[in-house]
């Protein structure tokens, strides 16, 4: 049975899986005493690879939502945060909700919460998506932006409760001591174990998204992107498909959020702010929105740039150090958007053709002159 529709995507997925496996084994075995970080001169660490995996899951969902269904979300970090906080809150203070304290010790409890988080976030996305997705273009962008900031404020402000009476989110400081994941008594930690779990989820989400976009559902979403009126004339329930695409992306974001919470063993509101949402959009756009493979590519590139600037920034920009990071980041972003508005995947795809055109130009012009 074929897992995916296209051989090329299957091959790409297999390649990515092999790379993931190779890097993981490298870190485990440490041949010649070298670890993964040493491969890039301590710029891209093993920790970064795990974060790339986690964010890939979020950005894959965003890619389907924005690139295929054509619905902008500038508040995706809210869904990411909901997953993280559901996991964080219920694994550290289940008793606030009157749940028996023993649950927090059960190995299956965090796994169940991952599912609960996805269901809850999906439901939330459905409820807010129904009205909000009636909006288009700029207006949709702004509504999702507002929504994202509201959710962020609720996290930061402990849902409006005084932390002294009911402490849910820990306010600014967030939650600590979130347990690692376990299978029975086998802990998915140290990081080398967790890495494989995260990337398993990331590869699965890529496979699922590839299946989706090359199906009846994916075509309906792309049709909506092309022309809602025409899609409706083809009996596509555009309102429903749009909101389901949002739910899909929100559930992936929630899954990633849960994985993030157990990875950091702590959750604070910072990553789920407006800037967090923007970074997600930037990753998706830089990778290329009309291609699922843009997600891992964009996430890896942006995180690599960030890590590089953090590690080497002070050498490149004497005396300035890591403060140069946002500037360089912003400039790269603007340049990519001006010169490769369809993202890197599109740029790579066009590379052979550009090459042809360049080598073909003299011939064409000589034809004209003769």
């Amino acid at each position, binding site marked *: 049975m074929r897992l995916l529709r296209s051989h090329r995507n299957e091959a790409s997925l297999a390649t990515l899986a092999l790379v993931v496996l190779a890097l993981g084994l490298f870190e485990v075995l440490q041949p010649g005493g070298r670890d993964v970080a040493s491969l890039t001169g301590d710029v891209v660490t093993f920790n970064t690879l795990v974060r790339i995996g986690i964010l890939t899951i979020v950005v894959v969902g965003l890619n389907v939502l924005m690139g295929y269904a054509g619905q902008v979300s500038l508040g995706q970090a809210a869904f990411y945060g909901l997953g993280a906080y559901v996991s964080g809150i219920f694994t550290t203070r289940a008793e606030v909700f009157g749940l028996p304290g023993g649950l927090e010790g059960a190995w299956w409890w965090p796994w169940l919460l991952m599912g609960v988080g996805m269901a809850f976030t999906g439901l939330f996305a459905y409820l807010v998506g129904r*009205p909000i997705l009636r909006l288009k273009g700029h*207006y949709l962008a*702004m509504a999702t932006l507002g*929504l994202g900031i509201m959710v962020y*404020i609720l996290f930061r402000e402990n849902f409006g409760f005084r932390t002294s009476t009911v402490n849910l989110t820990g306010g600014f400081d967030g939650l600590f001591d979130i347990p690692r994941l376990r299978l029975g008594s086998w802990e998915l930690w140290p990081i080398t174990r967790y890495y494989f779990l995260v990337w398993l989820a990331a590869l699965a989400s890529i496979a699922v998204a590839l299946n989706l976009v090359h199906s009846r559902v994916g075509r309906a979403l792309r049709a909506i992107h092309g022309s809602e009126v025409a899609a409706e004339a083809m009996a596509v329930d555009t309102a429903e498909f749009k909101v389901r695409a949002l739910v899909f992306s929100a559930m992936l974001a929630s899954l990633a959020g849960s994985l993030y919470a157990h990875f950091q063993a702590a959750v604070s509101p910072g990553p789920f702010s407006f800037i967090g949402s923007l970074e997600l*959009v930037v990753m998706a756009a830089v990778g290329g929105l009309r291609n699922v493979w843009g997600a891992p590519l964009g996430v890896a590139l942006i995180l690599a740039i960030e890590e590089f600037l953090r590690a080497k920034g002070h050498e490149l920009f004497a005396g300035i150090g890591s*403060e*140069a990071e946002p500037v360089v980041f*912003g400039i790269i972003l603007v340049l990519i958007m001006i010169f490769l508005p369809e993202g890197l995947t599109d740029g790579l795809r066009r590379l052979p053709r550009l090459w042809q055109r360049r080598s073909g130009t003299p011939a064409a012009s000589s034809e004209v002159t003769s």
Partner: protein
Amino acid sequence: MSVDAEVQQFLRKRRPAHQARGQQIAWAGVTLALLAAILYLGSQKNFGPLQYAQLVLDGLRGGTIYALIALGFVTVFNVTGIINFAQGGFVMLGAMLAVTINDWGALAQWSPGPRLAAAVLAAVLATTLIGVLVERLTIYPARNAEPLTLIIITVGVYIVMQGVALIVWGTDAYSLPAFTTLAMRDRTFRLGTVIVKAQSFWIWGVTGVTMAVLYYFFEHTMWGRALRACSVNRLAARLMGIRPDRMSMLAFGLAAAMGAIGGIVLAPATRPVYDMGLSLGLKGFVAAIMGGLVNPPAAVVGGILLGIIENVGAGVTRAGIKDIFSFIILIWVLLFRPQGLFGRQQTVEKV
């Protein structure tokens, strides 16, 4: 009955008429309920009329700044169709540049008054120039891109501005002397327990003058009229010999100037920081949306309303959730009044 009579009849009893009445009732109901909620929450904190007056006055001050920023959004959107996220960056740059120039050693022997005036003027001019540069370097090369691409570009520009500000000014909060006293301590006026800083009057006054100048510019000057023509119909404007890309540049310059003015007059009342632009820009944007995004006077009213609502809302609840009110308003307006609080219902989209 003839067809004409039939048509006449339902022209008269068309739905919008009684829909409008129903809407009015709903509006009145919602407003009353909100007022009741505010009064209830306020009574929990033993607020009297004076406390409310204070909240409204402070909100009015913030709202005036939002109005100025909103005008920048509206100007750029009208002419180019772009939502310029970098608008908040102009506000920050204006304030920071004014502080820096005012503290500049070369001007140390000037007397405080002219020095401050020179600093303000130079900061506005410099920010305007930066606005024009931003348009030339980032918007112009991508002028045919999709809206999302342009949004991301302006976001990138904002990130660069804030990043540069971080390098130049660090994370410290700075201060600009109050315009009245030319010192850090501002004069205050007291009406009972209600306190108004003199700087507030500067904010209102300068904003008022700026709007008057803008009005004159748009109504009575050639460039202003050309800008307006561009916002009505870009193609027609081009046919009339107006170059839309020049207008785009002009719009960004104007927006930057407005943002800078807002940041500068606000600076003595708050304390400018490198990342102040984000939240101010977003609020200005909400104000512009409240005004329907294309209507300058409505954006001004939207800004003032927003300032008052969020300040009163935060006052009766908690300061920490102040920002949430603007975003509740944002989503509410987008969903129920996408044409703005004062705009007329749009006609059906043509297919």
